[in-house]
């Protein structure tokens, strides 16, 4: 059996759904962030796979993946800074307990 593009797409879809599942079911701020990272990486896998299996590849898929990796790193920095700041105020990062706004 040869590995084709569809195998990559399935793996990336599974990664995406796992990420989605984590974001929807978990209430811990850091875990939600990990779910988001899974989603971003599933997209990266797609980019690289599409780029590899394209006849006239212009490399823009790979370039896009690099941009996503860099921006995901920047996002993680901001996220952890926010989580730390919130933890100092609330002593928890559980989303359900971080709620003091009246509706």
């Amino acid at each position, binding site marked *: 059996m040869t590995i084709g593009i569809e195998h990559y797409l399935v793996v990336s879809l599974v990664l995406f759904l796992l990420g989605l599942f984590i974001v929807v079911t978990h209430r811990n701020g850091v875990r939600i962030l990990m779910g*988001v990272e899974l989603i*971003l990486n599933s997209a990266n896998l*797609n980019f690289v796979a599409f780029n590899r299996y394209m006849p006239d590849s212009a490399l823009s898929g790979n370039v*896009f993946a690099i941009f996503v990796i860099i921006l995901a790193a920047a996002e993680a920095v901001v996220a952890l800074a*926010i989580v730390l700041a919130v933890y100092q*105020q609330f002593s928890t990062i559980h989303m359900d307990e971080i*709620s*003091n*706004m009246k509706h």
Partner: protein
Amino acid sequence: MQIQVPEISLWQVLPELIVLATAVGVLASDLFVKSVQRVNVTLTATLGLLIAFFTARSLEASATPIFAGMVVRDSLSILLDQIFLAGAMLVTWIGHEYARRNPRQFPEFTALVLFATIGMMVIAMSADLIPLFVGIELLSLPLFVLAGSDKDRLASGEASLKYFLLGAFSTGFLVYGIAFIFGVTRTTNLTVIGQSLAAHAEATPLLVLGFALLLVGLGFKISLAPFHMWAPDVYQGAPTPATAWIATGSKIAGFVALMRVFTLPDVSFAALSDYWTPGIWWLALITMIIGNAGALMQSDLKRMLAYSSIAHGGYLAMAFTSGTRIGAEATLFYMAAYLLMTVGAFGVAIAASRSGQECEKIADLSGLARQRPWLAFAMSIFMLSLAGMPGTAGFVGKLWLFGAAVQAQYYSLALIGVLTTLLSFYYYLRVIVYMYVHEPDDRLLFNRYSFSNGLALTVCAVGLVGLGVFPNLLWSTIRLCTGAV
């Protein structure tokens, strides 16, 4: 292997570079100067933004993409640059006032507003999905931090965390969607995508999935219902000047991204409008209803403005659905009007504080007309313009939005738009009633507001009435833009 270095014409992105230099300068001033005066920070930012504004004005528009097809300096991007730069200036001014009570972290605040502005300007000129994505991130990351910048209030941290998690989540959708679009069309260049779609305009499942995910990702950014859940909490919790920039700059930039991807003729998904139009049609409908219904029930001023902002996103999306030139023109005009009235309303919310007490509830505005008549008068203009009273830019803008929907034969959408607009008069007029009719709850006096805030509110109010009476001032420029693209 030969690597071709694309032509680098830095002077064409000079406005962005000037804003960048100003932001870095403001940030660095905090490191090297012992005690940074608030006035100097605001003056530096204003000066930088003004120079960038006039540089943008003087740029020559050209439809040829630059930087190897990554960005395009067309008249649309030049006009939007000016809108964003003017908006950033207004937000800096109202932030100056806010900082009087929260002096910590002021240089950072201004610098972050400027960084976010660069992101918006990058979105406005992107001709490729890569700069579009980078622009969205450049815009979002500073705003996440801005939302949490008031460390004395618990709500600020909460707002920041919620905004971040939903923002990052939506970025995931966006990127996953772009990956599929790239997979089907083999390019990230919007013009080439448009050509390849126009050549064989069949929507493969992957492609439909791709742009559905893209739409969801951008829908979160511009808080279209049902992706609006974060907006009320974030708007309420974030420091008010940050809220003003989230509500205006980020929302307008999101619509610009939609415009770049979906509607520009000869570019991108215009060829497949049969497929994406129904999606945006439903989103616009739900957004108008949920935004206006939600705003009816709010007693918190910023929360009410949040729902009102959602509703206005719905009106913009309605004109956007039409996909016509008049729709794009109406959207652009309304963006400018929306910027002025929303920044103005938040500016009043900042100015109408009593000693040690922020203006949070709508009831906190009671008696404002007696103590600060000009402030109440300005707020009345903003509220009437948001509601769409004739004589204000809000009315002219809405007229064109509805006109675009009717012209595209979206009668039911236009009807819902008009009905919800009538509904919206209730909650906008309620603010005016509180200011003019109700007695103040306590005898505390309203603070004096600073010159910078007064200037920002004057600019907003005069701009709204000016555009309401002479809409051609902006309309002619907009027509030039859409005629050229």
